[in-house]
């Protein structure tokens, strides 16, 4: 099983992922003879308290993406009243030199992480494809997929 072992940073379990338009969107661009934007690297942290993945909206817009859905979310400041957010369909790839994890169609929430030193949160929707081990004593975490 391919795996990565990375240091736990002050931000937590952070790793770079590559973000692009979803497989169906990339197919549509090919059919229309339009250029497919290259994948963009995003610094994410793994957040087991996030039920889905959220990405800096400016990254999504720089890929030319527009919303294709909505989702209701609850956060500590929403005080029990769900907020309706736009969702985008993306491809997510976790780097591995031989066997990258590629999820071709994932619905993510667009959000603003400005000033936080990260570009987004990897939620449990992506973690359900992985085995994660948090080794606090060694100061590392491992992700197998």
């Amino acid at each position, binding site marked *: 099983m391919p795996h990565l072992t990375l240091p736990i940073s002050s931000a937590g379990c952070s790793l770079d992922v590559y973000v692009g338009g979803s497989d169906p969107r990339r197919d549509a661009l090919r059919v229309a003879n339009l250029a497919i934007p290259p994948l963009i690297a995003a610094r994410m942290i793994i*957040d087991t308290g*996030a*039920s889905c993945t959220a990405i800096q909206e400016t990254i999504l817009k720089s890929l030319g993406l527009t919303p*294709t859905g*909505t989702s209701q979310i609850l956060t500590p400041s929403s005080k029990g009243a769900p*907020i309706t*957010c736009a969702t985008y369909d993306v491809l997510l790839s976790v780097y591995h030199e031989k066997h990258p994890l590629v999820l071709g169609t994932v619905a993510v*929430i667009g959000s603003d992480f400005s000033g936080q030193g990260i570009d987004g*949160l990897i939620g449990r929707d992506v973690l359900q494809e992985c085995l994660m081990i948090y080794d606090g004593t060694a100061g590392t975490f491992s992700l197998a997929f």
Partner: protein
Amino acid sequence: MPLEKEQETFERELSRLLASAGKFVLIHGDDVTGIYDTYPDALKVGYERYGLTPFFVKQIAVVNRTNHFTRDIAACRT
């Protein structure tokens, strides 16, 4: 507000759509285009039929699924 019309269509048609709870509906404007087993299936038809113009995909559910974040993210509201 993006997809406002499609969201209204979804809410208007929800009682009829509930017969297909768990599946994914594809909506374009006022039109319910189809119901599909998976999210990628619905997206695929959406892009094939509407190209890069806006369309809306949503899972049909009796109770609207809510995503939880213990971190206080700045949600980009629709």
